[in-house]
């Protein structure tokens, strides 16, 4: 059995026999297929990896530098990247600054109670997906950890022993599963849904009428809310109401929160940086503080950096075009096992190993549980080796 690193579920039960992949979802299977690997390049010309690293070190040794990405590489490599940022007095940021980092931070600061997916499997009655479509983004979340499995106190199957709630702006694939013993709430205003819970707890008629039924189910015991990007953007930074809702829910029943979404090791990076600096992202080692304006996108748009090291991410594909356009104007070093779109505009490309194909390491699930990923084979240029070499040269 090997771990899949396709998303933050980090499914532990992948089998590969005679080239066939068993148990993985569509996205996970693609991790294990043969791929065209990136080649080391400098200014678009193929070279050897040592030359590429040397040129990268030159680029990163002067001016204002940002290190960005980091969410798909092992914790051991993330640690080195944080060390490199410290040495360079650079900015460091990951996808969590526009993804679910705010929720991870609330958990780490103890502002909302959280739990583990193993406890969810064994105990949870109400499974509440809010602004997230795990059917697509975390395809085995429901079958491996939350809704479908039988375990612990939940032995009678989802038809009787789970109550599914899906709140979304649209009837997503996950929402379509909300049939028997379930509710789909079509949300046009997430803050109103938060208020509805508070209204229902105060005995008033909630603005979203379905909340009264959901609350009565939550009162039966262990409930978990899985929040995604739809919830984050819907709350629009007004987290006080959200944390207040949790506080009051937990006065009358037992309700936990786990972020739902993100890359395979985003939480690993957030926790590492939090342990070192007290912040989870958007950090400047020069100023010793995290600020909204240190978000990677803003650093580029506001022309605050001269060069960037991109590792474990493909911002040209995943961030707004204006950000990519600005990235194209600065010196960019990409460390990636594959030919990403960002590598097409990079000054230097350094190929690395893909987890778990050619490198192993520690990864952290969305619920904060660490897992040790064993590689299928050991490749020479792992993220750890690339970053160690870079660190020695800058």
């Amino acid at each position, binding site marked *: 059995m090997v771990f899949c690193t*396709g998303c933050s579920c980090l499914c532990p039960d992948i089998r590969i026999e005679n080239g066939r992949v068993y148990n993985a*979802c*569509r*996205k996970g*299977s*693609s*991790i294990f*297929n043969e*791929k*065209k690997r990136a080649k080391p390049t400098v200014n678009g010309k193929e070279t050897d990896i040592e030359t590429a690293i040397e040129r990268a070190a030159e680029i990163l040794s002067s001016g204002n530098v940002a290190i960005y990405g980091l969410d798909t590489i092992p914790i051991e490599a993330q640690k080195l990247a944080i060390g490199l940022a410290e040495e360079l007095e650079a900015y460091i940021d990951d996808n969590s600054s*526009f993804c679910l980092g705010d929720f991870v931070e609330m958990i780490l600061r103890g502002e909302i109670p959280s739990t583990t997916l193993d406890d969810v499997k064994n105990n949870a009655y109400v499974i509440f997906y809010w602004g997230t*479509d795990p*059917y*697509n*983004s975390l*395809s085995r979340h429901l079958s491996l950890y939350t809704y479908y499995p039988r375990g612990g106190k939940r032995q009678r199957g989802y038809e009787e022993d789970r109550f599914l709630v899906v709140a979304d*702006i*649209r*009837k*997503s*694939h996950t*929402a*379509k599963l909300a049939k028997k013993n379930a509710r789909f709430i079509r949300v046009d205003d997430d803050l109103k849904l938060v208020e509805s819970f508070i209204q229902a707890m105060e005995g008033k008629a909630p603005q979203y009428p379905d909340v009264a039924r959901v609350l009565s189910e939550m009162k039966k015991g262990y409930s978990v809310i899985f929040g995604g*990007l*739809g919830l984050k*953007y819907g709350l629009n930074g007004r987290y006080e109401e959200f944390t207040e809702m949790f506080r009051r829910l937990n006065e009358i029943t037992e309700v936990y929160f786990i972020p739902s*979404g993100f890359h395979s090791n985003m939480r690993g990076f957030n926790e590492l940086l939090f342990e070192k600096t007290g912040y989870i992202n958007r950090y400047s080692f020069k100023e010793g503080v995290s600020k909204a304006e240190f978000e990677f996108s803003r650093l580029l748009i506001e022309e605050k950096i001269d060069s960037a090291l991109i590792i474990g991410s*493909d911002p*040209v*594909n*995943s*961030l*707004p*075009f*204006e950000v*990519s*356009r600005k*990235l*194209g104007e600065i010196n960019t070093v990409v460390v990636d096992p*594959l*030919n*990403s*779109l960002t590598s*097409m*505009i990079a000054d230097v490309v350094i190929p690395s190993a893909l987890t778990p194909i050619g490198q192993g390491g520690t990864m952290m699930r969305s619920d904060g549980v660490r897992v040790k990923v064993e590689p299928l084979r050991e490749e020479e240029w792992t993220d750890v080796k690339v970053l160690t070499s870079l660190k020695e040269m800058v």
Partner: protein
Amino acid sequence: MKFGKFIKRAVIEVVIARNSHQGEVADNKLSEKFREESAVIYLHPNFAKKMGFREGDVVVLERNERKVNVRVRYSETSPEEGGMMPNSIFSNYLTDNLKGFTASISPAGGELSRVEDIIKKI
């Protein structure tokens, strides 16, 4: 390919979401499959029919003088009065944020936009 006889141009809200089909080919973003799974707008069938867009039509989405040609696919998981696109270079060419954007939609015909053409503009 002919279009329906109803609306020829409309302004719609587009939600950006994740899609497991697209995730499957994320390791080769220059492939034809990635383009087919990413240069796509999912419309609710009732909404699409009302506007005169048929499944498979190529339409142009336009916002702030930027244009992307994408294929219409029907999905009941789309907003009932809007569209949904997977997060990729195609949706990001039009948006300022990762939640969604407002764009005009009209018939285009011809080819889907290409990743390489957007990269050239960087």
